[in-house]
């Protein structure tokens, strides 16, 4: 069952129950009051009758100057006392001695009255107050009519008699039934009206929920840029806001994942290209050497030369690739060593390469100790200087300097070589990115150097910053944002 149906049905049931219970309670209360009042009337009339009867009997005895009046005389007195009034009276009267009916103006059968009398005489009220003016009353339903019957015991001439009066209360009960029917009809009409109002109210109140539902479904189906309107009552707008936050987080994560996946795809595509290009030459020329009928000496040397050259390229690539993969997964061996000693070792390793290309290396490093993985960090500096050598011409100078300002350590390698075009700057750290493929390959590069450098820098909690201007030179800086947090 849907929520709006539940809310609707529950409220409807409660409202109808409340209306019905209240009106029935009110009605029965007023009915009870009416009955009580009617009973009091009947009882007082009964008392009046019984007093009058007693008086008449005494009066009759005195008049006839007897000691006792017989039963027949009592009946006569009663008849004469009651008869003149019976036409105007609304009540009937019966007189019993024991269980024998002496006279009746009730118009009811004797058996019925006797059974009522028996009931009444059994009731403690009548017995307890025997002879003390006690009375019992009962409401009987005689077919279409209802009667209020009052019974009391009176002592006439030392004999106990039962006096029974009855008054017609049919009207009260008919009214009660009519009102009950009226309530039934009214509550049905009310229910219909309330139901329709309730339906509209519930529908309107739950409208934002439906909107949220629809929006959420769209988000779930992959429309992560969808946002829900933050309106409606507080709860709904809060829900919308939370949903929106969730969608935003999802969108953000998905974008991250997508970009990671894209980076990886690019990496794999580039890797495939970089591996397959030398392989194509190797396979092609190897195949040519094998299947060509005549291969002269010059051709053979050329083909073999290319095969060797391309194999070396593959070797470089696989070496760098292994380095790049292992750098990310190796445990760093942290050491605190003076920066100058690292620089000296790197300078030593590059000595031959420097003298061959006629480039001078100028190291201006302050006395500072750094906490690094020595081998990796050496490899980082080595790669940066090696790049600088490749970019420089004979006779130029490469500067390496380090300085610490405000706790931020910066190590920079600066050359005055060919520089990097501005539009390439943000791409050069990507794996396999080469600005000039043929030049890079001639220099024996695989396009992984800077990717490796930035990975090493990242592991040391540092970042690479490259500033360059074509034909003026490049400056690559390793920036430790907060020294001491590198470990």
């Amino acid at each position, binding site marked *: 069952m849907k929520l709006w149906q539940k809310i609707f049905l529950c409220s409807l049931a409660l409202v109808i129950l409340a209306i019905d219970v209240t009106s029935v309670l009110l009605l029965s209360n007023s009915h009870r009051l009416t009955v009580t009042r009617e009973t009091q009337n009947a009882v007082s009339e009964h008392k009046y009758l019984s007093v009058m009867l007693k008086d008449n009997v005494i009066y009759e005895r005195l008049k006839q100057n007897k000691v006792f009046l017989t039963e027949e005389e009592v009946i006569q007195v009663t008849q004469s006392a009651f008869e003149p009034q019976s036409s105007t009276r609304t009540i009937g009267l019966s007189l019993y001695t024991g269980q024998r009916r002496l006279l009746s103006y009730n118009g009811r059968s004797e058996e019925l009255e006797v059974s009522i009398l028996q009931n009444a005489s059994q009731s403690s009220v009548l017995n307890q107050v025997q002879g003390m003016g006690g009375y019992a009353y009962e409401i009987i339903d005689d077919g279409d009519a209802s009667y209020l019957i009052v019974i009391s015991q009176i002592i006439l001439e030392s004999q106990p008699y039962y006096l029974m009066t009855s008054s017609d209360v049919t009207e009260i009960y008919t009214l009660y039934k009519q009102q009950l029917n009226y309530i039934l009809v009214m509550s049905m009409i009310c229910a219909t009206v309330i139901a329709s109002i309730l339906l509209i109210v519930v529908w309107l109140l739950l409208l934002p929920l439906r909107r949220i539902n629809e929006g959420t479904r769209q988000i779930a189906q992959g429309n992560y840029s969808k946002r829900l309107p933050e309106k409606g009552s507080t709860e709904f707008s809060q829900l919308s806001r939370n949903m929106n936050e969730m969608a935003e987080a999802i969108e953000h994560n998905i974008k991250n994942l997508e970009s990671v996946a894209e980076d990886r795809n690019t990496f794999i595509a580039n890797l495939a290209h970089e591996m397959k290009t030398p392989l194509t*030459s190797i396979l092609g020329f190897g195949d040519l050497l094998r299947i060509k009928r005549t291969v002269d000496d010059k051709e053979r040397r050329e083909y073999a030369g290319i095969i060797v050259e391309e194999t070396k390229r593959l070797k470089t690539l696989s070496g760098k690739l292994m380095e790049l993969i292992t750098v990310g997964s190796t445990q760093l061996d942290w050491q605190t060593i003076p920066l100058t000693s690292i620089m000296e070792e790197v300078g030593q390793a590059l000595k031959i390469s420097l003298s061959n290309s006629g480039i001078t290396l100028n190291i201006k490093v302050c006395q500072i100790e750094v906490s690094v993985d020595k081998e990796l960090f050496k490899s980082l500096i080595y790669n940066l200087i090696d790049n600088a050598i490749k970019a420089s011409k004979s006779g130029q100078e490469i500067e390496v300097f380090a300085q610490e300002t405000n706790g931020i350590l910066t190590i920079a390698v600066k050359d005055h070589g060919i520089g990097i075009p501005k539009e390439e700057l943000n791409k050069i750290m990507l794996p396999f990115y080469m600005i000039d493929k043929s030049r890079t390959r001639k220099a024996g590069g695989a396009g992984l150097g800077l990717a490796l450098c930035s990975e090493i820098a990242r592991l040391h909690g540092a970042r690479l910053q490259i500033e360059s201007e074509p034909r003026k030179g490049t400056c690559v800086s390793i920036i430790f944002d907060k020294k001491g947090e590198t470990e």
Partner: protein
Amino acid sequence: MAKILIVEDDVNIAKMLEVTLSIGGYDSARCDNGKKAVELVTSQSYDLVLLDVMLPDMDGFEVIKYINKEETAVIFLTALQDVMDKVKGLKLGAEDYIVKPFETVELLARIEVVLRRKHKSNNTIHYGDITMNIDEHTVKKGDDYVNLTPKEFDILAFFLQNQDIALTRERLLATVWGYEFMGETRTVDIHVQQIRKKMGLHNKLVTIPKLGYRLERDG
């Protein structure tokens, strides 16, 4: 002689393609970037373009749009093995798509197929007194028709199309029987012997030890 343009930025691969095409008996021209390739295909007429997908300035998918596919067939050369790329290449109107690295003879065979489809290749091959009509599937020695089984015919055709090139048994199997055929190389030997006998090629169709066979160039 069919004229083929090589568009490849790697010098060594371009060189290798040039040599391969020359032993296949094709005329070739080289160019190493997309812009120049567009210039060449719009100004000159080529029968076929071997087009590398990854080029430094504009990629092969871009270059192919400038090529008149009615006149010039295109074969993509690429390092990417992605099916989507292959579909993309073929949708753009390429005739074939070769994934690097590849064997020399495979490249020649594919070029042959593409050129034949484009009717740029000879249907009739003459070799000494042998005349082979590939479309009619007939072989004549002198004036007499020779009865060859379909496989023998295919092998002979492959030899005639790749004269002076050593063909390995594996290559013959792959080309004539298809890659999925897992037969023995011995099957090739039997067929080659039959061809030698039927066509009288005992001296021309020579066995190269440990490699395969070669049909010496006519004359």
